């Protein structure tokens, strides 16, 4: 097991320079999600217009994997329809199961492929994506 396989440069860049970190006042769907096993938490806000994610913002506390994953996710889904965003979430699940997945739309995500070799850390990487699924569900109901 090599540390470099897990902590790729792209991941550390998102951890150090998070994209879309913060909150927004505009009309949005807000989701709070915790990882009860470790205490990581995320608040995700989605602004959706005509079925398209116009903006995604997050705040939270967690490890480099969970926070970089949130940074990438919020970047990757901007401009996507809700179905496209869910499609990305599916692809991300496949990536975490060690399947070879390419993200033509947002290549940074592929840097998280190493997480699949660290089973204890998969739940860190998927926290933001679970918040996304919950947010889309809540948005569709509300």
């Amino acid at each position: 097991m090599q540390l470099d396989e897990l902590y790729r440069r792209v991941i550390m860049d998102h951890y150090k320079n998070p994209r879309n970190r913060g909150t927004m006042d505009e009309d949005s769907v807000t989701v709070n999600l915790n990882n009860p096993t470790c205490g990581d938490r995320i608040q995700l806000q989605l602004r959706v217009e005509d079925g398209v994610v116009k903006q995604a913002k997050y705040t939270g506390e967690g490890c480099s994997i969970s926070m970089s994953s949130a940074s990438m996710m919020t970047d990757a889904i901007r401009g996507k329809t809700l179905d496209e965003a869910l499609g990305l979430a599916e692809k991300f699940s496949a990536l975490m199961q060690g399947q070879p997945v390419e993200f033509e739309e947002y290549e940074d995500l592929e840097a998280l492929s190493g997480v699949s070799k660290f089973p204890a850390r998969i739940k860190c990487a998927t926290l933001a994506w679970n918040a996304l699924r919950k947010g889309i569900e809540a948005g569709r109901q509300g």
Partner: protein
Amino acid sequence: MNPLELRKQFPILDQQVNGHPLVYLDNAASSQKPRSVIDAIVRYYEHDNANVHRGVHTLASRATDAYEGARAKVAKFLNAASEREIVFTRGTTTALNIVARSWARAALREGDEIVLTPMEHHANLIPWQQAAKATGAVLRYIPMQPDGTIRLSDVEATLTDRTKIVSVTHVSNVLGVVNPVKEIAALAHKRGAVMVVDGAQSAPHMKVDVRDLDCDFYAFSGHKMCGPTGIGVLYGKRELLEQMEPVEYGGEMIEHVDYYDATWKEAPWRFEGGTPIIAGAVGLAAAIDFLTEIGMDNIDRHSEALARYAYDRLSEIEGVTLYGPREGRVCLVTFNLDDVHPHDVATVLDTEGVAIRAGHHCCQPLMRKLEVTATARASFYLYNTEEDVERLAAALIKAKEFFGHAIG
């Protein structure tokens, strides 16, 4: 005692993890098992296994003798007045739940007070929250000093004539502090309250004498003290246990049953509905033999010395914050590395073969009090050495350098 010699009796410790000899420092979560405990469980299943208390055949007698013999051994280990004060449970959590569901719900009235400390494990917190909600009782907390210690004057000031239960952890699984439970018990009794002690982290590390502590209930788990998982103990003073209703109904715990009503066995058996954890009790008895042979006082001294050594060694590393006091600590150190999340620390340490815990340690309210979301924790046992602490320190320095470069 010689930790290096003792280590040889633990088959699991003789392995490489990620290319390094394993250094196991997650003992507060679960300890490893010596050969004698593993053998006792195997021997039980290969020679004596049957159900207890019911059969007239030879194996049933042997299984019953083994199970009740384990109870007598636990009673002696805790210096209980009688083996009838020893209830076998699934672990500390179940033991505390029995007190909170059976004794507490019958005894508590609206406005009565349950007194805890801010450092309780969720297992000694949530059962009381639920008991309070069910009865209208209220929870009150003894203030904690910034270094994680409890002052008796604060205990005294928190207790009132409405205090019915005081439940305190003997040793904090996060701070490593040893709480003065004997003195707290005396103060609780002055107010007419019962004293419950969460012994999950003390039973493995120190001589516990329940009559000297004069606690009313004491709970611990087998798996943190060289025994198997799935077995734990609730000690309760006999007059209290005899007043309590069972919390689980079924076979084994009854005296007389007809179609519309039933009566219960005496304590402790009324709390052991269903086929009990027989092999677990056998394993726990073997663990007690193992620990007693080494001597609990020796283990206590080793635990304290190693915790202090680790505290001092980690203090030397720039960027490490330690939680809890230097003095009066046993068995563990809890810490954080500046700018690196404890999960990331634990992952780097694991690649170096060093197993530690990262997270909230089932103490979410305490984490908020310490103003952290999570911490790293290294916890020691009788087979750990100063050399293990050096491996921990070296791995921590590596983690610091790695993340220093990665996010620097």
